[in-house]
């Protein structure tokens, strides 16, 4: 497997199909993403033209066997995320949102009519979706959300504001989570519905090649047939997040790999004191730590992936995967940044871009702290993140 950092011969564990998926997405990223991504990052623009290509190649909703999905294993889905994030976390974010936060809930909680109406377009890339859970005052604690949906005849009236929403201003549909008399429920809100607007968030210094925005809902009337019938309660949006976090656990490996390989080749070429800096013990120590952490992260992702293929995973395992892999990826990116010296801050190299991207990845989909406390609860039985709940 070309460019696959593989200290423990992990490639032998993949199936032929998984290796081919890797090769395809890897080639796609080398040819279509790497040459342009730094410019898009600098301009603060998402490479929208890649969406249909990715849909055409089967990158979206890829674990589904129906509606045009490729029917891939969870490990293959992980490899897609890894390779896209080797390109840029922004591209991987797009695919995570589309596949895990939009296609997954419609497929899992949606009506037949909703599936037929939206899934083929979302999978081919003709439709773009977003996922509105976070609000200005409710991030780690989404259960406190203020967005309300009130039933009126055969319609629902939605009011509220969602914040930090990936893809918001480029989306055709939004999965909006809102409180009802019957608990939190999900609604498919279509662009064009009265009172629905999506102002973009500017001045980001991270994930600049990804669109992030608000969603403002002012008396938006949504027909009952757009309510997700199979989801009542906070558990359901969290199930979506478990899917997305799994992919992020793999994605982080991609940016870590890119930073690691960039640092290794830089260290071999950069000469100081008449020798390549790779000859210095301090540099070697940094590279050795990077490879060790990267390898452990790969094994964690692979093993959780195989468990997920068998339906034997738990959400705590995925918390560990997301928390650990993003943490080590961020550390690897920072160390690579250091090894590249002044070049480490230049967009001519991918390292600083990955590094600042990973700051977002650390925060979204459950911060590192929150996942730590999920594990804390698993270990001790004490729930530490909500002081008012036993």
């Amino acid at each position, binding site marked *: 497997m070309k460019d696959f950092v593989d200290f423990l011969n992990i490639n032998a564990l993949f199936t*032929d199909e998984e290796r*081919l*998926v890797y*090769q*395809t997405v890897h080639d796609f990223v080398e040819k279509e993403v790497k040459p342009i991504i730094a410019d898009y990052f600098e301009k603060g623009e998402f490479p929208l033209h890649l969406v249909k290509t990715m849909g055409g190649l089967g*990158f979206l909703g890829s674990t589904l066997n129906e509606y045009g999905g490729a029917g*891939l294993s969870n490990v293959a889905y992980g490899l897609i995320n890894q390779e896209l994030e080797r390109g840029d976390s922004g591209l991987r974010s797009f695919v995570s949102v589309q596949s895990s936060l939009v296609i997954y809930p419609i497929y899992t909680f949606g009506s037949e009519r909703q599936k037929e109406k939206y899934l083929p377009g979302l999978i081919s890339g003709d439709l773009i979706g977003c996922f509105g859970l976070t609000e200005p005052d409710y991030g780690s604690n989404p259960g406190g959300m203020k967005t309300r949906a009130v039933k009126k005849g055969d319609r629902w009236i939605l009011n509220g504001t969602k914040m930090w929403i990936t893809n918001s201003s480029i989306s055709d549909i939004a999965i909006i989570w809102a409180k009802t008399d019957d608990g939190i429920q999900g609604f498919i809100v279509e662009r064009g519905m009265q009172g629905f607007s999506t102002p973009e968030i500017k001045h980001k210094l991270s994930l600049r090649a990804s669109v992030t925005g608000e969603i403002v809902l002012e008396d938006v009337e949504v027909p009952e047939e757009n309510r997700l019938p199979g989801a009542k309660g906070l558990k359901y949006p969290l199930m979506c997040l478990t899917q997305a976090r799994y992919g992020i656990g793999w994605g982080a490996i991609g940016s870590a790999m890119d930073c690691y390989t960039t640092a290794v080749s830089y260290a071999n070429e950069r000469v100081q004191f008449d020798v390549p800096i790779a000859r210095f013990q301090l540099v070697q120590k940094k590279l050795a730590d990077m490879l060790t952490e990267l390898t452990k992260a790969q094994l964690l992702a692979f093993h959780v992936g195989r468990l997920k293929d068998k339906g034997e995973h738990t959400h705590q395992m995925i918390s560990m995967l997301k928390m650990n892999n993003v943490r080590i990826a961020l550390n690897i990116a920072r160390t690579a940044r250091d090894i590249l010296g002044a070049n480490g801050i230049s967009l001519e190299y991918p390292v600083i871009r990955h590094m600042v991207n990973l700051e977002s990845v650390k925060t979204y989909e459950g911060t590192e702290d929150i996942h730590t406390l999920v594990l804390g609860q698993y270990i001790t039985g004490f729930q530490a993140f909500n002081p008012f709940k036993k």
Partner: protein
Amino acid sequence: MNIMVFIKQVPDTETKIKIADDGKSIVEDGINWIVSPYDEFAIEEAVKTKENLGGEVTVVTMGPKRAESALRTALAMGCDKAIHLEDDAFEGADAYSTAKALAKVIEKHNPDLIFFGKQGVGNDNTQVGQLVAEMVGIGHIGTCIKLEIDGDTIRGEREIEGGRETVETKLPAIVTAQRGLNEPRYPNLRGIMKAKKKPLEKLTPADLGLSADEVGLAGAKTVYLSLELPPARQAGKKIEVEPEVAAKEIVEFLKNEAKVL
């Protein structure tokens, strides 16, 4: 239309080649194997032709077990079925004994249109497609950069020294693909999963009516005596004097040291 495309699995073009202890072969450990880049043009043209004119594409390779993944790639790109000439006896073939085996596949299946890459990256013989055409006794268009199909006539453009020529032949015929013929597609992920279910037939020399000593190393007309890596690049030399003196020094260097003048 019954289309056949012949491909070869080769080391990734970015591989750092190491020569094995026997001095005649390369170390295969750690090599990333790919479909030879010219064969990708051949696959693309075959699949495109099928999409335009209907029919079926059979992809064929001769090679060890690992070459199966090259066939899977081609199936994922849209070929319909695969044939794998896999047998120890096929090993060590040269262009001639390769062509001999492949020609039998054509005689067995009678395809209308046959594609090869213009050469297999690595050995770079640039012979197999043409040899097969001779052995089967059909026409061929070599190093083709543009192809038109009109009933049972095909017209191909080829780049020649200082220009282009257009040649025509009747089907069945062989076309060897050159860069520029098309832009090969990525194997689509849906295609990869479907490829798993497409038929892959294994053939031995006996299945082709050949004996073991007609194929592979035994049937080869040429043998490798030795392999050598290109000489390591020497450190450059800087000449930092006025242009007139520099010109003289360069001529001296080319004459006496590089010995090319």
